């Protein structure tokens, strides 16, 4: 990573081990720009929460340094870092009212009463809970508690706010609504937000950039669309969205394309993203909606597949096929109102563009 001066947060060669035997975070380098909404996305145990806890100051880094506004903070205790944090399950103080919860960070900063009150009011109005100041957290619904937690993390005007799976406890509908609200708050206040989640929809909806974690390493750091459109490796392709895998060997490289031979001797044209060279193994990654069933015009890649199963899903039809030895090959056919004459057992031609088919590192 370049020495990007002026970043809000910078992880510099950070490593973390709990037991002295295995590294939970392996040599993390990451710059987070001021005002950015960065999401750390990954399966559980991938090290994303550990990275957040090290930034908040609740876990010491085993090696390396974390900088906050270019100041090293390894030896700064959590309460002096001035970072707002929203916890999983909110961690609202149950023995205090909502207003007292919000007053807490202001009281410990010795702010005078009238200033406290105006700030609490502003923060509560921001999350549309102006009338709930005297309630106890237990008297609020999950979504309301969540908003209070957000308001509390913002009430003392931190430049950086950390969120640790804050929407995990909410039901689906509320979760989607809160995603937009948090996004709007971020846009309005211009704070830097570091957000941890294992939910890819959340990550894609809200973030400026997403860091995909696996096995203690950032697999890819990109804006959401890039993450989906051009995954850098098989893990990312598999983790983000739906994905068809075809294993094969590279036979030719040239002209910005490569030729891959998959099972059954079928040769396919692909975009060489992450391959070692001619003769190396590769895994082709292909999004289900980029495949055309019975294409009208010839396409870069044309193969025959056997339809195994049809699932009607309203806006599209999910077709599970056997293609080149892969019986889990999925094609999404948009529902345009026309009746296609296809049934399970049929053998039909399918096609896709070479650019939509990414040749990535080989897996499985």
């Amino acid at each position, binding site marked *: 990573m370049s020495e990007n001066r002026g970043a809000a947060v910078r992880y510099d060669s950070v490593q973390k081990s709990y037991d002295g035997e295995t590294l939970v975070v392996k040599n993390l380098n990451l710059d987070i720009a001021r005002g950015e909404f960065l999401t750390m996305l990954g399966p559980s145990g991938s090290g994303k929460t550990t990275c957040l806890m090290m930034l*908040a*100051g*609740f876990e010491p880094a085993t090696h390396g340094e974390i900088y906050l506004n270019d100041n090293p903070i390894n030896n700064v*205790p*959590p*309460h*002096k*870092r*001035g*970072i*707002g*944090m929203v*916890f*999983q*399950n909110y*961690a*609202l*103080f*149950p*023995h205090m009212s909502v207003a007292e919860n919000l007053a*807490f*960070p202001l009281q*410990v*900063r010795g702010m005078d009463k009238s200033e406290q009150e105006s700030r609490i009011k502003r923060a509560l109005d921001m999350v549309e809970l102006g009338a709930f100041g005297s309630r106890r957290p237990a008297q609020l619904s999950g979504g309301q508690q969540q908003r209070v937690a957000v308001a*509390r*993390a913002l009430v*003392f005007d931190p430049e950086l706010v*950390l969120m640790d799976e804050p929407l995990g406890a909410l039901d689906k509908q509320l979760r989607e609504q809160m995603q937009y609200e948090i996004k709007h708050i971020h846009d309005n206040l211009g704070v830097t937000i570091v957000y941890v989640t294992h939910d890819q929809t959340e990550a894609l909806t809200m973030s400026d950039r997403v860091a995909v974690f696996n096995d203690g390493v950032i697999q890819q750091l990109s804006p959401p669309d890039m993450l989906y459109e051009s995954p850098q490796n098989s893990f990312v392709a598999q983790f983000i969205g739906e994905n068809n895998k075809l294993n094969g060997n590279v036979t030719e490289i040239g002209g910005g394309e490569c030729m891959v031979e998959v099972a059954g001797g079928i040769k396919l044209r692909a975009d060489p993203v992450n391959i070692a060279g001619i003769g190396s193994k590769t895994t082709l990654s292909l999004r289900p909606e980029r495949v055309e069933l019975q294409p009208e015009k010839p396409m870069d890649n044309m193969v025959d597949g056997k339809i195994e199963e049809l699932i009607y899903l309203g806006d599209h039809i999910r077709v599970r096929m056997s293609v080149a030895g892969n019986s889990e090959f999925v094609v999404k056919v948009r529902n345009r109102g026309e009746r296609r004459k296809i049934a399970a057992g049929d053998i039909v031609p399918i096609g896709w563009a070479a650019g939509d088919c990414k040749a990535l590192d080989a897996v499985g």
Partner: protein
Amino acid sequence: MSSTISDPASDGVVRAADGTPLKQRLNRALRREKLRSFLLILPLLAFIVLSFIMPIADMLFRSVENQIVEETIPLTVVALKEWDPASGEAPGEEVFAAFHADFVQAFKDKKHTRLGLRLNYDEPGMSGLFRKTGRPSTKMQPPYKEAFIKVDEDWGTVETWAVIKQASPAYTDGYFLNAVDAHRTAKGIEMVPENERIYLFLFGRTMFLSIVITMSCLLLGYPIAFLLASLPLRSSNMLMILVLLPFWTSLLVRTSAWKVLLQQQGVVNDFLVWIGLVNDADRLIMINNQFGTIVAMTHILLPFMILPLFSVMKTISPNYVRAAKSLGANDWTAFWKVYFPQSIPGIGAGAILVFILSIGYYITPELVGGTSGIFISNRIAYHISTSLNWGLAAALGTILLALVMLLFYVYDKIVGIDNVKLG
């Protein structure tokens, strides 16, 4: 057919399909369930009634029961009704005649000494008087008044008869008066002389020592419970075994161990002398006094403080303290403003448990308390097993019970019993 589910509009009663009111139907359906669960608890219920509720009720009753006088000397009790101690004269011949008849019968039944003992609680010397009069009473000839006075002059005094008359009713408040250092004299209820007062002082000391023990248990137990709750499961289980270890050792052994440690030639004194902190000539007196009681009982009751504290602290998510720190609170503020208030239910539970246990504690104060460290319970035990004044023991016990209930009520008002969590 009209056996559908009735319409409630007709008479406002919801009916089942066969026309009986639904409530009645439901009760009948539930009755079998209830009966079965009642049968399941029946053995325990019977055991508790027999071994706990009935003895307690009996003891409570004994604190006011006084039928011995009426049963032993029934004729005298009737005859004394006419006599007024305020007249300043001993009762007349008819009372003595009745008393003689009663007394001879009591002597035959060997009951006269028991009565003497009972009256001795009210007036020392009565026991001796009754015993002395036992055999001579059988040879007495009328007039009985002279005959009794001949055996002992006390029979001619107003006080003796006033005591008997006063003790005549079947129920008495005498034991309760005794239990609060008061007694009934010819002039009404009075406190006993200053140098004879003991029970109020003992109640006070029991309260004071119990509070001191509760506080020291809290001071020692809180950090341990905190440590237990914050350690990872494996090491906290190990420590928990250490906390529970005392439960597997006999109470007597633990108490005796403190005797070994704290006595003047004991381990602690030896050590202090060896490091030169204490002169060999004036070794510290740490046992058979209040200090010994407080130390030993704090040690014995400490688990009862730690366990409720631990179970409450275990439920406090570490995220609360983290949240407080992320909001800018230093370690102390985060603890005091966020962690401590959430641990109060555990403090309440532990404190009330230790306090109630210590207020009625008996064995440890008996063994290490000497004279300055004993509790009211030791006095109750003395009256049960040594002085055999069960009435007074019952009165003291009743007062202790009432006191605990009163404190419990006050505690409920201040802390709120629903704030108490045992786990």
